[in-house]
């Protein structure tokens, strides 16, 4: 533990940059403790508040630009991939898309504070062909809203954070082991949840091959296209004979659905 603290003391700027960049690239390493620590270390001038702010902003912005271009050139495939690696697949793309569609580019102002939105908003901006300068302007403000308060909190509460560091140093490896066990338990729990979720889905869902066979055989089924407005508007194709219903209107229009036939629902 002492070595880690010493390392942060001597290479704080580099560690801050790497942690913020990895966090914004979607690696599940929260960077806010690093921002707090950098803010606290700024009282000793290593790195200064200004340098900490610059590094955090450049790291976050550069990661977001990579996501922006991945969204622009890979389309929805990149969103699907993000969902696959997400630890929260059940609340992944659709809910985040909903937030983005509701607030538009303004959602970038608060994206860094909202799990999921932080990773989804930049590729969505690219997917929607928002001009890069406009994306950068909004994202820059978002990066500032995120990094400045955390650095300032670290700076203002440096004594209290120093006390925490002292505590960690005193309890040495034990504190490190407790933290590592906590992180490992969290990740294992989320992976277990995800596997359980997918097992449940597999048991009730219909595979594309089975659906294709049903269409070919002319079976009586109703295919409902429940893609989000964003997904629907950015893709000119649909599954043959599908009925389009906006997800929010499903319950209102339930009486219009054919009764007594198998309903196949699909989103992205």
């Amino acid at each position, binding site marked *: 533990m002492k070595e880690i603290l010493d390392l942060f003391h001597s290479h704080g700027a580099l560690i801050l940059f790497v942690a913020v960049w990895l966090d914004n690239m979607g690696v599940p390493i929260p960077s806010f403790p690093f921002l707090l620590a950098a803010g606290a270390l700024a009282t000793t001038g290593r790195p200064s508040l200004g340098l900490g702010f610059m590094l955090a902003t450049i790291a976050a912005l550069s990661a977001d630009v990579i996501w922006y271009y991945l969204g622009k050139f890979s389309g*929805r*495939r990149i969103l*699907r991939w993000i969902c696959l690696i997400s630890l929260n697949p059940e609340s992944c793309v659709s809910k985040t898309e909903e937030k983005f569609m509701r607030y538009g580019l303004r959602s970038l102002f608060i994206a860094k504070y909202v799990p999921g939105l932080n990773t989804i908003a930049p590729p969505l901006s690219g997917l929607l062909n928002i001009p890069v300068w406009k994306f950068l302007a909004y994202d820059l403000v978002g990066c500032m809203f995120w990094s400045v308060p955390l650095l300032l909190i670290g700076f203002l509460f440096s004594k209290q954070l120093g006390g925490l560091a002292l505590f960690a140093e005193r309890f040495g490896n034990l504190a490190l082991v407790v933290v590592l066990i906590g992180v490992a338990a969290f990740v294992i729990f989320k992976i277990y949840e995800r596997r359980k979720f997918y097992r449940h*889905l*597999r048991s*009730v*869902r*219909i*595979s*594309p*091959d089975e*659906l*294709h066979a049903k269409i070919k055989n002319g079976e009586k089924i109703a295919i409902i*296209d*429940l*893609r989000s407005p964003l*997904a*629907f508007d950015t*893709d*000119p*194709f*649909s*599954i*043959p*004979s*599908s*009925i*389009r*219903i906006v*997800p929010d209107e*499903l*319950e209102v*229009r*339930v009486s*219009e*659905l054919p*009764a007594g*036939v*198998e*309903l*196949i*629902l*699909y*989103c*992205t």
Partner: protein
Amino acid sequence: MARRLMDKGFTLVRPLLGGFDEWVSKGFPLVERDLAAREIKN
């Protein structure tokens, strides 16, 4: 969504595994939206 429809009395509700993207990646037929999707109007 499936659960909400089941609560409304639809017993045969099945979400498509992998969604639209999986359907596309498998190369199954698609039609242009205006020809395919009948938008249910109010």
